[in-house]
């Protein structure tokens, strides 16, 4: 987080206004999750998204922010190889010690109440139609109270990943302006651990090993969610860039354009790819492409030119469409909304792109003196990605595995047959929508 002395009051006002836009992102994602699920679980999907949002916000404010902290707050350090490794903050619980004023730390907390909810919604999509509400709530609490704050501290709270530049001369340290790593990849890897623990939906894989098609029940929800999510994403990328990457408010137009261009290029790539493969564009994969472009843009939004943003989006769209097929067909990972491909795969690409295009720091006008060129920045990004895959994925899986041993996370077979609406809520989303025997 940028220190308060370095940011003037008008910048912080702009930042606060941008943060107000961010709730559109979880709202859009909730609608997308619902559209990708089955009709008999639509009300449950929307309620589970709301539950995850609520639990994430409360738990983050209770515990999460104290462990995440912000630069300048007391932190626990480990001395390793003669260098201090800042690994967790030592702030008091319940937001005590935080002055509720227009300081960057307060705005960072406010922004992250929404981003932690966004991260929590990603596994909800993967666990659709088979994840019990109680287990979903506890798993969300673990994500918002421990996994997310830990990684967010390392990246945004002045932790060891942010200090890779000052401690080891790796560019500007690990850069993640809009939360591609701390929000998207972390949420995507949590979704992967949930997919492994829950297993596929009943009937998803046939006796020959191939997957059965379970199309989303309402693609209009999905596509409208894609449109709804855009202002939220622009707010997230712009506010994150100001607070966590020190971008000037004059860059907001560039950030907004980059966000939209990356999403557009990614969507068009998915459209062209599916048109080429299947003869017609696939609406759900186009939606995944759009989201994948947004996710990748979160990493690069304030660092690159619009042309580079288009290139990042093109690659993200190709990666997402390939990853959806590989995961579903070859690796038998049942991910109804393609959340793992969209958030983890595209997010990792975006994070690496920050290091691949070294001129970004020059565009930002802040190439630190005495710091080597882009190879150091690329190494910092690689270390960040390695940390997400090598430490955060096993941690998310381990916590959810333990939870599953104590309280099985998957709904009983009867519940899956009946539908999550009837089983968990006792009523459906579309009570007048009845299928007759003769139909």
């Amino acid at each position, binding site marked *: 987080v940028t220190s308060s002395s370095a940011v003037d009051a008008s910048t912080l006002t702009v930042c606060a206004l941008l943060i107000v836009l961010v709730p559109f992102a979880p709202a859009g994602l909730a609608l997308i999750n619902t559209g990708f699920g089955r009709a008999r679980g639509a009300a449950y999907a929307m309620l589970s998204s709301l539950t995850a949002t609520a639990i994430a916000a409360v738990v983050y404010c209770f515990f999460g922010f104290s462990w995440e902290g912000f630069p300048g707050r007391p932190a626990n350090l480990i001395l390793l190889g003669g260098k201090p490794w800042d690994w967790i903050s030592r702030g008091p619980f319940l937001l005590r010690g935080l002055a509720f004023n227009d300081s960057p730390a307060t705005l960072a907390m406010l922004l992250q109440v929404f981003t932690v909810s966004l991260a929590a919604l990603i596994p909800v999509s993967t666990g659709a139609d088979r994840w019990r509400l109680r287990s979903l709530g506890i798993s969300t609490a673990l994500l918002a109270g421990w996994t997310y704050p830990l990684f967010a501290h390392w990246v945004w709270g002045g932790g060891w990943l942010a200090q890779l530049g000052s401690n080891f001369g790796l560019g500007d340290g690990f850069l993640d302006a809009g939360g591609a790593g701390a929000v998207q990849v972390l949420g995507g890897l949590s979704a992967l651990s949930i997919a492994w623990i829950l297993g596929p939906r009943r009937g998803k894989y*046939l006796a020959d090993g191939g997957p059965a098609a379970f199309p989303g029940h309402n693609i209009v929800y999905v596509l409208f969610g894609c449109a709804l999510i855009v202002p939220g994403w622009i707010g997230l990328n712009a506010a994150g860039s100001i607070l966590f990457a020190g971008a000037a408010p004059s860059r907001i137009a560039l950030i907004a354009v980059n966000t939209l261009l990356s999403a557009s290029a990614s969507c068009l790539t998915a459209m062209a790819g599916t048109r080429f493969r299947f003869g017609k564009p696939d609406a759900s994969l186009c939606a995944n492409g759009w989201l994948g472009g947004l996710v990748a843009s979160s990493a690069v939004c304030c660092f690159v030119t619009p042309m580079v943003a288009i290139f990042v989006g093109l690659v993200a769209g190709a990666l997402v469409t390939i990853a959806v097929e590989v995961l579903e067909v070859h690796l038998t990972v049942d991910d109804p909304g393609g959340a793992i491909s969209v958030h983890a795969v595209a997010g990792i690409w975006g994070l690496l792109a920050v290091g691949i295009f070294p001129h970004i720091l020059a565009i930002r006008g802040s190439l630190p003196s005495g710091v080597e060129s882009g190879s150091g920045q690329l190494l910092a990004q690689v270390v960040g990605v390695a940390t997400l895959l090598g430490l955060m994925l096993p941690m998310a899986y381990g916590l959810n595995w333990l939870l599953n041993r104590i309280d099985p996370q998957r709904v009983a077979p009867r519940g899956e047959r009946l539908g999550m609406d009837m089983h968990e809520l006792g009523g459906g989303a579309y009570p007048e929508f009845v299928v007759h025997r003769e139909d």
Partner: protein
Amino acid sequence: MKLAGLLLLPAGWGIVISALSLFPQAGLRWGFVLAGLCIEAGGLILAFLGARYPKEAAE
């Protein structure tokens, strides 16, 4: 197999972190970081293969 894969992931990360502390030279550092990443990739492949849905359980 899944457990082995999940154990390889932090092992690879340990190599990546060790490379930062032990090797100030860019070449060696890059080499060991990439080696750690390769181990993580191997762990991820093993974990995916170990978590594959068994054909006999399919309907």
